[in-house]
């Protein structure tokens, strides 16, 4: 039973006024209490009439609610990938609905807008507009059922929508690694954890982490438990890791890549003597904000003839032990300039450690004139001598040294006509496995001015003159006024390995979902800190070509989720356009070693993420007619009592109103 009121506010206000005035006079009037009661009863009934009430008597019944069936019709729902048989996921949902006896009038399609009756044509909607489509539904529907794979965002639901997930079928392997989690990008020197869960038949599952095929860790984890490995990336660039689980003869590996960058280039700059080169190179390095530098210069040698008190000097003790033995491995590049190793008793122990630093991936820049050349020649460390790109022979002075670039990546970006230099040069013989970057001519012979050598994982560059500062002040002239900067930019890019990096690159990863991470670097080869690039891409292969929609994810990383695909080889193409107009196209082949499936489980995660509603039905588990079989409880209005339209109510009203008149007439007062 339900009471409704259908009063008109103006009529109600007028009635209330009338009733109030009548009640006022009725109270003041001297009459019998019984008569007053009759009059008041009349007024009350009149008040009830003014409210225009209606009394509904309801009856409970069960029936199917009016339902709109909406099929997500994004590109990915409509693509035939072979994973769901000959039909796409949208077609599968449609087929299921028709088999359930659903009228076509009740089926709608959500793509770039709402389509009714028939699916959209060739118009592409990478993601369907869920909110827009629901807003465009005709009114009157009591229930909305939305068929989706969870790939398109679902926002703005109000609880009226029921979700049915349409995914690709999948089988769980007995030995598997799940919930693999690793960072999109990592920074050199900073360790990170790789998290995962392992499942298998045995009680304990041996798990192994490989870096570029080399085992870096191995541990046994209980079946079904979570595990992790701590990784310390050595060197920048793309690192291909493999996480493998072993159970008996079975082996399951998941491969993933992590791009390693430098947060800041770290340099230790040690100069053996005050000189112009130090002044200009330090100024150049200091102008680079993406660089941390510790700089030391030996201002006084033990042999200097100066008899002053120590407190009259402003000298900083050189932390020899800390730099050469302890802290060197925190740095990327060690610059040694005209440094005589005999000065501070730098013996073979110290130099061996420098060689170890380079061997493990550090870089060394040697800028030397006579003093360093002599000390190198007498270096007590055989390891250190082995890393030298050039072996000093003698020192010569010239007023004009012609310079020649060599076919080397460092020299390739420089001008062909390298500005000549004057001053002292160390004539040296190239060491085995070294490469010349710039050569110079002296006495009819050619000697390396700048040369490099790879030693272990690291690199060494040797400059055989202390006169390179002239490129900054003098010899470069107007034409090549930035030559000094270009040269050192290339040298340090070579030493910190960024010359090997592309400004844009991508990896295909899987942590729950398959995606393409595109890495975008700024002009200093550090991760781009803001959404300053536009990325367009697509994936093609096996007769299909699908767009990739990239979104800025975090510093230096744009991400596009991959559509469902059969395993196999595909080509990925990405074009990155920077705000400054520079753009870079890059493409590569990817080999999917398993089908990319948007499993129903995944879709639930997607829905939870976007709508906060994890509960969803799975199409594969629903029998045809599931929704039509669902009847809901409804209350139908069986009978309605409206006092205003009731004969008896009006009769009572007339009786109450005329009762006083009849009474007085009866008494003879009227």
């Amino acid at each position, binding site marked *: 039973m339900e009471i409704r009121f259908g009063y008109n506010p103006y009529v109600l206000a007028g009635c209330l006024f009338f009733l109030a005035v009548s009640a006022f006079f009725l109270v003041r009037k001297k009459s019998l209490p019984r008569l007053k009661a009759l009059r008041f009863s009349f007024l009350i009934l009149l008040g009830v009439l003014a409210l225009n009430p209606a009394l509904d008597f309801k009856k409970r019944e069960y029936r199917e609610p009016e339902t709109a069936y909406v099929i997500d019709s994004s590109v990915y729902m409509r693509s035939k990938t072979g994973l769901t048989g000959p039909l796409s996921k949208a077609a599968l949902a449609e087929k299921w609905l028709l088999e359930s006896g659903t009228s076509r009038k009740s089926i709608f399609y959500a793509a770039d807008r709402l389509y009714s009756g028939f699916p959209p044509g060739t118009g592409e909607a990478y993601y369907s507009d869920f909110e827009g489509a629901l807003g465009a539904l005709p009114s009157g529907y009591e229930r909305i059922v939305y068929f989706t794979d969870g790939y398109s965002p679902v926002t703005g639901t109000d609880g009226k929508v029921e979700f049915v997930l349409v995914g690709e079928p999948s089988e769980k392997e007995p030995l598997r690694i799940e919930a693999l989690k690793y960072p999109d990008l990592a920074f050199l*020197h900073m360790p990170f954890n790789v998290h995962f869960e392992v499942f298998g038949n045995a009680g304990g599952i041996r798990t192994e982490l490989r870096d570029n095929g080399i085992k870096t860790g191995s541990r046994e984890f209980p079946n079904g438990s979570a595990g992790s490995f701590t990784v310390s990336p050595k060197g920048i660039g793309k690192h291909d890791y493999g996480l493998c689980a072993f159970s008996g003869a079975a082996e399951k590996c998941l491969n993933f890549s992590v791009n390693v960058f430098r947060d800041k280039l770290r340099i230790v700059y040690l100069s053996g003597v005050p000189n112009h080169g130090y002044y200009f190179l*330090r100024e150049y390095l200091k102008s680079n904000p993406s660089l941390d530098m*510790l700089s030391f210069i030996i201002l006084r040698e033990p042999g200097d003839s100066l008899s002053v008190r120590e407190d009259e000097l402003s000298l900083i003790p050189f932390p020899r032990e800390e730099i050469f033995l302890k802290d060197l491995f925190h740095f990327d590049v060690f610059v040694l300039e*005209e440094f005589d190793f005999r000065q501070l008793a730098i013996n073979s122990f110290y130099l061996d450690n420098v060689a170890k630093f380079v061997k493990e991936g550090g870089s060394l820049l040697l800028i030397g004139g006579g003093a360093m*050349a002599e000390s190198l020649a007498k270096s007590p460390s055989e390891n250190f001598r082995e890393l030298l790109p050039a072996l000093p*022979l003698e020192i010569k002075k010239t007023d004009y040294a012609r310079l020649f670039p060599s076919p080397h990546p460092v020299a390739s970006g420089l001008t062909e006509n390298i500005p000549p230099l004057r001053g002292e040069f160390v004539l040296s013989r190239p060491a085995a496995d070294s490469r010349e970057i710039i050569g110079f001519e002296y006495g009819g012979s050619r000697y390396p001015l700048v040369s490099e050598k790879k030693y272990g994982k690291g690199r060494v560059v040797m400059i055989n003159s202390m006169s390179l500062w002239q490129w900054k002040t003098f010899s470069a002239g107007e034409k090549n006024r930035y030559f000094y900067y270009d040269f050192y930019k290339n040298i340090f890019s070579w030493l910190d390995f960024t010359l090997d990096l592309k400004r844009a690159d991508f990896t295909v990863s899987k942590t729950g979902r398959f995606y393409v991470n595109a890495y975008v670097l700024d002009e200093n080869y550090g991760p781009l800190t803001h959404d300053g690039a536009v990325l367009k891409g697509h994936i093609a292969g096996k007769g299909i070509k699908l767009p990739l929609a990239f979104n800025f994810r975090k510093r230096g990383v744009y991400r596009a989720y991959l559509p469902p695909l059969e395993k196999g080889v595909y080509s990925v193409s990405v074009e990155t356009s920077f705000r400054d107009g520079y753009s870079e196209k890059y493409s590569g082949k990817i080999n999917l070693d398993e089908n990319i499936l948007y499993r129903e489980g995944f879709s639930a995660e997607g829905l939870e993420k976007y709508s906060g509603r994890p509960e969803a039905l799975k199409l594969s588990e629903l029998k045809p007619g599931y929704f039509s079989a669902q009847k809901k409880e409804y209350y139908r209005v069986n009978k309605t009592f409206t006092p205003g339209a009731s004969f008896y109510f009006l009769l009572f009203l007339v009786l109450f109103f005329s009762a006083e008149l009849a009474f007085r007439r009866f008494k003879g007062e009227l």
Partner: protein
Amino acid sequence: MEIFLRRAKIAFFFLFFAQAASALELNMAVLDPYQGSPCGFDEKVYSEIALWLDGAANIRLPVKMKKISLKDELSLYPILLLSCSRPPADPDFEEIVKLRKYFSSGGNLLINDSSGEMDSAFSLWAEKLNGTVFNSEMKPLRSDEPLFKSFFIINRPFGRYFFSAVPKGTEFEGRKASLFFKNDIYSVWRKDGNGKYLYKCVPGGEAQREMSRRVLLNAVMYFLTGDYKSDAVHQPLIMDRIRKIDSQLMEY
């Protein structure tokens, strides 16, 4: 066989390293704007300064004093010394442009007023030159400038006369490209035929002369190391930050 070859290589290396390393000379020149101008350095004074710099701080000047004029190529010498007793002729437009280009490419100028006067005509000339070349005026250096600690700690009067406690400098592209010494740190070096100093240092005497030498060394050192000494205080902090970063696990 391999060891033999390696040893032979090393022996070859020592054998042919024929000449001992020569000293690394600085490219520093004395600027004499025009021929016959009241500016310049005495050869003997130059030699004495060179000896002092080498002995005290391993700074090696060319053995022979290099004297250049505004007509010459300046940029080969990142450090120029200009000491005058009277103002030379004003540089013309081309020379102004040349000087500006010199400073833009990293050049540095040490100006010394050897007039012995408080407000000399040369000091006005130097102020005017700085204003024209740099479009900014010379300002007294702050007491915490690296110049005062680039090698020696300078905390006492210096110069032939003690006209001002600090020299002036002109800021250009983030550095002090020009330093102006009113107190005359050149004349304190001059000696007569008997090897006695020509001028007394007023009021500090020999202690002031010693401090003048030190200021000159500091100025040259400043032009070779920039603000290295000011940065040095931050280096332990940088190292601590690096160590901290490397010891923490990356969150993602």
